[in-house]
């Protein structure tokens, strides 16, 4: 693989080299550039018009429900699927026309895909061996990689003899030992128990910081995405819904779908007229153009209010608690208000049984979101 990189440089003209050095030293363009990628299997359209950049050293998560096309996108980057349209670039190299074994991209598979007939050590050495590296170098790099994931003790074991979490580490070592420029991870934690999963999230994240390689991490678990990512790309039915940092995507969801998929939310349909929003029983003022609008109001933005100390500028409503779910530190309650409006509210835990409550929120917390287009 390094050989092909060298060859490519050899074929570049001087001006291209100049441009490449400018872009890397001054502008530092993205490591990976996905441009207008589309994919369909027969009549079934899986991805349409995906454009996405991944920066050097970034931890990017592709988040989506099953069937959203996230794994297909990953497989196009890895080279297991051919895109029906669009291009994938790594720096100055067109990636999507290379076979998988010429890409400086490695993958951690969902089921790990450890070779059952090879030992842990042989699995990790595989990529170096087919690249015909000297045995001395292979030995030292394999050892280093196994040390890094704390699996040196199991070097001689067969994959079937170690646990799921350990297989996970070996799969990581096997990919990283090749020093890829980009690591793809296809729901690597989905087979693990909840506890081990949380532990691996932390380890994976710090490992990524340590090696400084860009990660593209695919998951359907929004919490996992929030915890680990620098940026999240939310995919829905083959199209990107929003690409943003976890804070931004939670705080400023672009669409109703994003708001609902990431965490809980209340969606309020409203009508804006002359700086006034009317939404069911509510009215508040907002600097918005006239017309219909959709608002996302997070459950934690709603508070239980007491009659006495009403915060100034807050919007208030009373309702009856229909359902109360204890979550430890917080509780989620469903409150039925006037006009049959149901609001989900997050309140501090141990509030006891509630019946009639008074709720309030601040207009600034009601975020305008786009209506999500109907897609199947």
């Amino acid at each position, binding site marked *: *693989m390094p050989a092909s990189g060298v060859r490519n440089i050899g074929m570049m003209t001087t001006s291209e080299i100049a441009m490449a050095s400018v872009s890397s030293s001054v502008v530092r363009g993205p490591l990976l550039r996905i441009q207008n990628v589309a994919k369909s299997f027969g009549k079934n359209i899986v991805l349409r018009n995906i454009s996405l950049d991944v920066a050097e050293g970034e931890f990017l998560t592709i988040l989506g429900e099953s069937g959203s096309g996230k794994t297909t996108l990953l497989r196009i980057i*890895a*080279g*297991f699927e051919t895109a029906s349209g669009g291009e994938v670039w790594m720096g100055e190299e067109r990636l999507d026309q290379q*076979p*998988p*074994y010429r890409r400086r*991209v*490695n*993958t951690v*598979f*969902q*089921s790990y*895909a*450890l*070779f*059952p*007939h090879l030992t842990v050590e042989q699995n990790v050495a*595989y*990529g170096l061996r*087919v*690249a015909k590296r000297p045995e001395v170098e292979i030995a030292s790099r394999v050892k280093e990689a196994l040390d890094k994931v704390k699996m040196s003790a199991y070097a001689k074991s067969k994959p079937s003899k170690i646990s799921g979490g350990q297989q996970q580490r070996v799969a990581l070592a*096997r*990919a990283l030992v*090749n020093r890829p420029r980009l690591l793809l991870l296809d729901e690597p934690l989905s087979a693990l128990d909840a506890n081990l999963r949380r532990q691996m999230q932390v380890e994976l994240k710090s490992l990524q910081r340590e090696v400084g390689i860009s990660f593209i991490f695919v998951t359907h678990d929004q919490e996992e995405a929030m915890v680990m990512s620098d940026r999240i790309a939310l995919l829905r039915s083959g199209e990107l819904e929003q690409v943003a940092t976890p804070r931004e995507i939670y705080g400023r969801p672009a669409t109703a779908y994003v708001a609902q998929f990431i965490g809980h939310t209340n969606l309020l349909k409203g009508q804006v007229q002359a700086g006034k929003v009317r939404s069911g029983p509510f009215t508040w003022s907002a600097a918005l153009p006239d017309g219909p609008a959709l608002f996302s109001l997070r459950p934690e933005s709603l508070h239980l209010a007491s009659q006495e100390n009403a915060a100034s500028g807050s919007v208030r409503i009373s309702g009856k608690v229909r359902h109360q779910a204890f979550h430890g530190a917080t509780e989620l309650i469903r409150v039925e208000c006037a006009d049959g409006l149901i609001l989900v509210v997050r309140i501090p835990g141990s509030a006891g049984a509630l019946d009639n409550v008074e709720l309030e929120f601040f207009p600034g917390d009601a975020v305008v979101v786009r209506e999500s287009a109907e897609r199947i």
Partner: protein
Amino acid sequence: MELLVSEGKSVSGSRWLLLHAAVVFAFLYLPIAVLIIYSFNGDGVGGFPPHHLTFDWYRILFADGPIWDSVLNSLQVALAAMVISLAFGVPAALALERAQFPGKALFRRLVLLPLILPGIITGLSLLMLFNVAGTKLSLLTIILGHGTALISVATTEVFAGLQKVDRAQEEASLDLGANYWQTFWRITVPNLKLPIIGAALLIFTLSMDEIAVSFFLIGRDNTLPLEIWGRLRRGITPEINAVSTIIFVFSLVAILLWYRLRVRGEGGSEIGLEIAEVADPV
């Protein structure tokens, strides 16, 4: 799983099944028992009960040149047929599983047809081909016949094995920088080790016992079954029983070895299941 339970009715049901099984086993083993016993019978193959137990037939057998020549011929044919069938049957299974091409359905049916088609049809069709091509009949034509007919065994076996292989294994190999050729030898073949060995053994056994195709393609040199056939027609001696007994014992040893291999490799799957897989249409 154990389903032997204490309900009165079902126990009697299972007793009938047990009895039935005993009858079937007796039916299957009666000729084999007869064949072994008569290989030690001094009076030849007629008469009952057998008298004069003797090893004479084994002595005669070991001095019998033509029989051993035919055994050697059969071994050659079986080994060569095994190589041909695997060399074309394994790629055929890969093609059927992973490639789309015009005529694929016909190709699949053609490959599998000799498995079920009466051997004489395959045999005489090839005879016509060799006749038209002006090829002299010899062990080579038998090898080509067996090799071609038994591709079906290799293909069904390996195809069934392929469907159990996790595709991600090969993807991982490509991902780690191995090209298709390296991936085939380092990952695909090791993953298919058991189906390939199973197919090889089955092809070998079937070829050793094959008559119908060989019958039409035989040249000057006989294979073992054709040598036996020739002698059966001329009048039989228990020498044939003796050679069959020896082959039977060898087969049993081979089966046991294979069984141990599989038990170690797979945690106890059964030998002979390959035949069931062959019987399972793709």
